């Protein structure tokens, strides 16, 4: 791999807002420091404005009274302008620092999450609950991380601002300070309550919304179009949706009304506070303790204080409450286990003579389920042999592949390759051993050459790409691509070219061929293929794996016949094993399945007479 800066670790465990701040700080210590500094300066500005405003007004008044010459206004005016100017400057500076920080945090966070996601144990991907969790935790992670980090600084700023201003007021007229405190405390308490209520409702409603949204999607999305129009269930779904939706609206509205009431009180309280302080200051002006300039200056800054206590704190609380949900997802996500060696490139196993692969009394159930998919399953696959696994759906054929390729390792019993326990191989070695063409093979929307070279990431040979292209029968398709092997496939890239289903499948097989691993596995490729294409895929796969070990997984028994040996999986274990002829002769499950399928293609006795 190229030299890459080491990415910071994602903390495992509970995530709080402060952790997001720390993460951002780790990503960009310089950016964060400058950001904090600009905020400290920003904090000081209102005070400078207070003093300059006061001196400007007072001087203006004194000029007006004729106590000072007109020129006396110059210094206060200039300093007032200077404050405004530095405020503009600081604002731009802060914006730039924030943009810098954002770019950095976005990039790094995206990469950290990307990496973590790709390293997770496979079982989380197949479990729709954890898969959804991952989806939620990893949507826009950069933007969220940045928002939270900077928001923490702002919240700290708000607290500092409120406290320092109350202290300032306290110093001028002490009992005004008391008024401020008396108003601020209940306001903050109520704001916190509103935020928590919001959070609670959000949770309650979220579940109901998911219920309602199902019905919405039945009515609105293309996936359901054919059945929707045929069965005409739209009115039913709309009715169900409406019932759920009205319930949700009601709950939301109830919370909102309650919070509105609180907000009314908070705002009134802060305005009373504002009025009371101003009045007390007016008396101070009357007694000559405070100049008119300071009074006007305070009118401005106290308005800011009022806003920060009344609305600012409520905002922060509500925002934090909302962030809590995603932080919960993030905490859970961070604690998902990673697969060791998940990201490693395959080791070179081409000269590995494994002799045989053996399952001994392997039992397995998917994590979180009770039913054993495999139960005391034992068999061997010999090197150089073509084996077919057959059996009804859900018998556990595909599960065997998942265990062999290390996607799941929570099995009981032993799996050995060349006498060595599968658990003792590194993941890189396991990757080097198998190439798999999955039933739902990936359609990588990358350049054609790259899509094939992924078969062996340690080798970069255009020549080999052309060779396998030829072997797999994709030469004609390749010729039609506008930029040869560099043509992006699919629609993700602008100049991409989409392939037909059969061509995509061949690309997947070509990839396996390019990989040249000791064992090739073909997992039921025929579901979406017509019979002629189906025969072709099996024949092709047989041809390209000639002389090597290969495993076919299928429920189409005709196809299994090309294997040297057929293993019938039933009830989680190998029920029968042998060549086609042996199994037919034995008259067991296989024989029954085969004759059922065969009968479709045989002439019925009655019809025989006709023909």
């Amino acid at each position: 791999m190229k030299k890459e800066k080491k990415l910071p670790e994602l903390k495992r465990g509970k995530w709080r807002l402060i952790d997001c701040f720390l993460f951002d700080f780790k990503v960009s210590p310089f950016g964060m420091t400058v950001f904090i500094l600009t905020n400290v300066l920003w904090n000081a500005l209102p005070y400078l404005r207070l003093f300059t405003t006061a001196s400007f007004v007072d001087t203006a008044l004194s000029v007006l009274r004729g106590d000072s010459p007109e020129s006396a206004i110059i210094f206060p005016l200039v300093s007032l302008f200077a404050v405004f100017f530095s405020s503009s400057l600081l604002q731009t500076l802060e914006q730039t620092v924030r943009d810098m920080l954002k770019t950095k945090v976005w990039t790094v966070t995206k990469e950290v999450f990307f990496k973590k996601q790709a390293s997770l144990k496979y079982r989380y991907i197949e479990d729709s609950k954890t898969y959804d969790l991952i989806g939620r935790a990893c949507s826009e992670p950069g933007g969220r991380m940045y928002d939270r980090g900077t928001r923490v600084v702002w919240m700290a700023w708000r607290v500092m601002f409120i406290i320092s201003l109350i202290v300032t007021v306290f110093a001028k007229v002490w009992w005004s300070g008391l008024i401020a405190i008396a108003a601020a405390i209940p306001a903050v308490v109520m704001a916190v309550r509103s935020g928590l209520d919001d959070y609670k409702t959000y949770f309650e409603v979220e579940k109901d919304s998911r219920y309602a949204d199902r019905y919405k999607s039945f009515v609105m999305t293309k996936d359901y179009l054919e059945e929707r129009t045929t069965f005409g269930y739209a009115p039913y779904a709309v009715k169900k949706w409406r019932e759920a939706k009205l319930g949700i609206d009601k709950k939301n509205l109830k919370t909102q009304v309650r919070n509105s009431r609180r907000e009314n009180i908070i705002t009134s309280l802060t305005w009373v506070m504002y009025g009371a302080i101003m009045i007390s200051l007016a008396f101070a002006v009357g007694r000559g303790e405070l100049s008119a300039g300071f009074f006007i200056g305070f009118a401005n800054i106290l308005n800011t204080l009022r806003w920060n206590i009344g609305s600012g704190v409520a905002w922060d609380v509500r925002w934090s409450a909302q962030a809590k949900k995603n932080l919960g997802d993030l905490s859970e996500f961070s604690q998902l286990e990673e697969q060791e060696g998940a990201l490693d490139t395959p080791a070179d196993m081409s000269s590995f003579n494994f002799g045989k692969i053996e399952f001994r009394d392997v039992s397995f159930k998917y994590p979180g389920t009770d039913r054993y998919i495999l139960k005391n399953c034992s068999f061997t696959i010999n090197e150089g042999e073509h084996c077919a696994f057959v059996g009804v759906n859900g018998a556990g054929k595909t599960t065997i592949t998942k265990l062999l390729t290390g996607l799941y390792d929570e099995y009981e019993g032993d799996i050995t390759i060349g006498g060595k326990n599968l658990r003792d191989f590194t993941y890189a070695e396991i990757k080097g051993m198998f190439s798999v063409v999955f039933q739902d093979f990936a359609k990588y929307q990358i350049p054609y050459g790259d899509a094939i070279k992924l078969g062996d990431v340690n080798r970069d040979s255009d020549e080999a790409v052309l060779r396998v292209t030829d072997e797999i029968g994709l030469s004609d398709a390749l010729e039609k691509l506008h930029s040869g092997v560099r043509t992006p496939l699919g629609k993700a890239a602008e100049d991409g070219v989409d392939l037909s289903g059969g061509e995509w499948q061949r690309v997947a097989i070509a990839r396996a061929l390019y990989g040249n691993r000791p064992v090739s596995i073909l997992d039921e490729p025929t579901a979406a293929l017509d019979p002629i294409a189906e025969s072709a895929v099996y024949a092709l796969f047989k041809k390209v794996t000639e002389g090597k070990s290969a495993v076919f997984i299928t429920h189409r028994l005709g196809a299994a016949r090309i294997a040297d040996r057929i293993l019938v999986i039933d009830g989680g274990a190998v029920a029968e094993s042998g060549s086609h002829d042996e199994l037919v002769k034995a008259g067991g499950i296989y024989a029954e399945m085969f004759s059922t399928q065969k009968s479709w293609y045989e002439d019925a006795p009655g019809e025989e007479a006709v023909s």
Partner: protein
Amino acid sequence: MKKKDINKKPRVGFFKCVRNTIPIIIGASPGLFALGCVIIVVQSILASAQIYVLEFAFNGVTAISEAGGGAVLDIVLWLAVYAGSFIFATILGQIANRTDTDFMYRAENRQTKQRFDKMAKLAPIIFEDTDRLDDIEKSSAGADSARSLLNTIKQIVLYHIPYFVVTSIYLASRDPWLVASLLMIFLPTLLYQYLVKKIYRDKEDKAAPDRRLSAHYIECSTSEKFFKETRILGGFGYFFRSFHVLWARIMKLDRSVWLKDNWMFFLAELLTFAGKMGVYYMLFRFLLVGRITMGEFAAVFTSVNTIEDKLHQLFYGSFASASRDLPFIENYVRYLDFPENDGMEVELPYEIGIDVRDVSFSYPNTEEPAVRGVTFSVKPRETVAIVGENGSGKSTLIKLLIGYYRPDGGDVKICGWNTKEISFSSVARRLSAVYQRYPHYALTLKENLIIGQYEKESTDENMREACAMAGFSPEEEWLPNGFDTMLSREFDDGVGLSGGQVQRVSIARGFYRDSSIIILDEPTAAIDPIEEARIYGRFAELSRDKTSFIVTHRLGSVRLADRIIMMKDGKIAETGTHDELMAKDGEYKKMFDSQRQWYEDEA
């Protein structure tokens, strides 16, 4: 394998956007809307009146500091009025908030209902047009945006405009020159807003394809579709590096844009700053020469920031959100304008015969016709199998037969009714089907069945019967709560189903529905052969008194059909019974043999 040409969708003008969406929203509750409007006007007046109040309060303060006391009560009074008016405004705001929320919920529900109703009237063919599909998908966001636009308009017309008018009147009444101060703050902001919007638009056009591709790279090693394969291939490095390079490019573009933006912002701030300087100096001069009083001076002086805030609200808030909303509203408006299904509702007889004459059909935006020049007829109670390779037009033909699509050329007549003249729902009332791309519903097993025909009363018996047809019972499939088991792990106590189980549920749904035409469109891909044989057997039995169609590429299962239609390249290649076709030694036999060879004894 041709490059897709990107044809721009027709633009929808601003006024059309407003005209076609706003009445629906307001209509949800004109009363609540009017109340909201009144409140907002009052708020605006209160906000603009504050400058008057301030003037009186400050006049009082200066009087005190000049005269050394006396008029304190006056100030107290004005301050009380000042704070009181704010409290009043806030309470009004909360009332507005509540009524607005209520109004918005109602409007949303009304809009959604309208979108649903529209959906029911759309011809299915519309979904084959990707541009239109895009409109449909974004129509939800469009409906939200339309509400947001209405709010913005309300805000501008009823709040900001009155505010600026009243403030201008105040300033003009004190001194006409003061109105200039508004302009000095106004112009730089306007200029900045105009310039910046252009930069961002240009950037988004440039960055969008890269963003899409970068998302695909992540998908390639993290999404379910790719995960296991990429892991076993060890392909993470490739995708990570590709992502890294692309993302760096996106960020570089980003940086150049925000640097430009910040520069312009700074310049605009400087201009505003100069404007403010001008205003302050003007105020001072006017005060000195006695053109304005101290109270007027202080009132304007403290209001400058408020005016600036309101301007920012207008430009960065209202205008920006309107320009964000408009593209989505266009999707929404186009969607509402889609042509609707215009067929007559007719009552078809129970026994269905279909006559197909020289029918041709192409999907939107494609050149190759999917079906060309097909002619045949189907008698009531006949079982017809349509076979052929992938892409030979089997599924399309089926959909033409039942009036789901209407032919471009030729006619399909169902019991004498031309499908161009009758609605699809007329046919659908007689029809049941299991389609190739059967969906899965995250509902209970019971609901999964009854949406097949919700008008029918569901009983344990008829549900069980439908399930038995599809070869299962809730008990065999380990469903913990029988028919009430939720078939999705997304919801409490739900169970996840395998592909085969989902398929069987969808077959059961098809059988649950009473029908006189039934279609099985390759529904057995995920089901094992023995089960498949049983399902086809039961289908044959069930469909004896129905007109039925089987679409498949697995020829073994079609022999029970009365007639087989072999499709090739959108045309009928051969037609006849299995034996006739085998005797013909043509396409059908070739295909049949290729499949049969797997089951022949060792050659």
